[in-house]
C-alpha cells in the first residue's frame, strides 16, 4: 500500500492526463462535424451541399443543338476537341434562356494567348507564338477563325 501512497503524485499527474484526454474527447465531439469520415477523410454532408449548387455549365452537346453552323466549322479544325465553354465560359444560364442571356464574345487577343503563348515547357509541335511579335496586339481573329484556326487564303472566314 505504501508504494501507492508514495507514488500518489504520479497518479495525480496521470489523472491530469486522463482529464485532459476526456476534455479533448468532449471538445472533439462538439467540433468535429457528424458526417466527417462517412465516405473518407472529409465531411460526408459536403457532397450533398456541393450537389445542391445550381449547374453552371451547359455542356457542348447543349450548345450544338442550336449552333450547328459553328459545329460544322469546328469539327474539321484543330479545335474540334476544345469544348465550347472552355473559351466562352459557363453558359447554362444562356442555354436555359437564350433570349435574355446573351454571352459576351471573348477578346481573342487575350483568350488565345492563354494557351498559345510560347513557353519552353510546351511540346514542340504545339502552335505557340510571342503575341507581341506575332500580332502586335491585334485580335487573333483578324487572321484566324477561332473555331478552326488554320490559316485560310484571304484571312478569317
Amino acid at each position, binding site marked *: 500500500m*505504501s*508504494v501507492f*501512497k*508514495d*507514488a*500518489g*503524485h*504520479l497518479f*495525480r*499527474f496521470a489523472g*491530469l*492526463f486522463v482529464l485532459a484526454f476526456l476534455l*479533448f474527447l468532449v*471538445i*472533439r465531439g462538439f*467540433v*468535429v462535424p457528424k458526417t*466527417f*469520415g462517412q465516405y473518407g*477523410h472529409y465531411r460526408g454532408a459536403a457532397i450533398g451541399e456541393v450537389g445542391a449548387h445550381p449547374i453552371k455549365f451547359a455542356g457542348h452537346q447543349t450548345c450544338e443543338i442550336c449552333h450547328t453552323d459553328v459545329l460544322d466549322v469546328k469539327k474539321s479544325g484543330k479545335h474540334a476537341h476544345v469544348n465550347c465553354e472552355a473559351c466562352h465560359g459557363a453558359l447554362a444560364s444562356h442555354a436555359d434562356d437564350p433570349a435574355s442571356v446573351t454571352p459576351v464574345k471573348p477578346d481573342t487577343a487575350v483568350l488565345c494567348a492563354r494557351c498559345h503563348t510560347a*513557353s*519552353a*515547357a510546351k511540346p514542340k509541335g504545339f502552335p505557340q507564338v510571342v503575341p507581341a511579335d506575332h500580332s502586335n496586339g491585334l485580335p487573333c481573329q483578324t487572321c484566324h477563325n477561332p473555331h478552326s484556326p488554320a490559316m485560310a487564303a484571304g484571312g478569317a472566314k
Partner: protein
Amino acid sequence: MNGVEGFMYPNEIALQWSVLIVLYPFITGLVAGAFILASLERVFQVDAVKPTYRLALLTALAFLLDAPLPLVLHLGHPFRSPEMYFTPHSTSAMAMFGYVYLWYLMAVLVLEIWLDYRREIVRWSQQSKGILRLVYKVMTLGSCNISERSLAIDERVGWIITLIGIPSAFMLHGYVGFIFGSIKANPWWSSPLMPVVFIFSAMVSGIAAVMLLYMGLTKLRGYKIDIRCVDTIAMYLFYIFIIDFSLEMLDLIHRIYEADESFRSLNFLVHTQLYIPHILIQICLGTLTPLILLFLTQVVKLPEIVRKRMYAIAGSLALVGIFAMRWNVVIGGQLFSKSFLGFTTYKMTLVTREGLLAAIALTILPLIFLWILVKLLPPWTEKNEHEAIAAD
C-alpha cells in the same frame, strides 16, 4: 521576369516556404539536442555535465514551446491548428506532427522536469509568498509527499522517461528530416540520409546552445564556469560534429559521384546563389572552423581561459553553421526549377508576417520563455553553487 533566370514553372517562381520554415527545424533541432545533452547525465551517467542537466531540460522546454509558432505564423488561420488533433490523417507525416509534438512536450519534457524539481517545488510552495506560492501550489498537484521513498520512485520514473525521451527526441527531429527527405520530386531534399543528418545536426546545435547558455549565464551570475563540465560538453560536441559533417559530406560526395539528371542544375546553384550560404557560411565558417577549434582543444594542452574562449567561438559558429544548413536545405531546395532549366531568387521581406522581424522575434521569444522558466524553476542546485564557490 525579375529574379528569374531561364525557365521556371509558374508555381516555382515565388518561394512557398520562407525564413520561418528555416527557423522551424533550427528550433526543433535545439530542443532535440538540448534533451540529448540532458540524457548524457541521466542515462549515460556522464557526471561531468551535471551542472547543465536542468538548464538543458529548461532550454529544451523553452524552445519546444516556441517551435510550432513559426509554422502557425506561416500557415495563418491559427484557430484551425487544433484540427490536426481532432481529425488526424494518419498517412501524412506532416499531419502527425501534432501528436509527436504533444507527446514530446507533455509525456517527456514536462513530466521529467516536474519529477526532477518536485522536491524543490514542494519546498517553494511552503516558503514562497503571494502569487508565486499559488503557482508552486498548483505545480505540486496537491501532493507534498517528498519522503525518501517517494523521491526514489521519482528518480526511477525520471530515468525511464529520459530513456523513452531519447528515441522521442530522435523521432521529433528525425521526422522533420523525413518530411524533406521523402519529397521525391525535389532532388535537393530527396535522400534517405536526410533524417539522420537532421538528427546529428540537431544534436550539434542543441549541445552548442546549452554550452553557450551555461557559460553565459554562469558568467552573468558571477560564478566560476565548471571547466570540467564544458570540457566534457565540448568533447561530445566535437565527436558528434564529426559524425554530422561526415554524413553531410557522404551525401554531397554521393550526389557528385552519382551525377544524376539534377546534378548540373544543383551544381550551378551551389557555385552561384548558394556559394556564400553553403560553401562559405555552412561548410567553411560554420563547420570546418569550429571543428578545427574543437580539435585543437582536444589535442593541444591549452590554458583554461583559452579553451573557454575557443569553446564560445566554436559553439557560436556551430549555431551559425547549423542555421545556414537549415537555410540551404529549405531555401536552396526551392531556388531551382524541377525542369532543371532555370532558377529563381528568394528575397526576404522585412516587416511582414513571414519577414525578418518576425523571424528575429521568434528567435528571441524562446529566450524570454527560458528566462521565465529559470526564474520559476532555478536550475542551479545548492550543490552546484557550493562547488562553484569552492572552485573560486
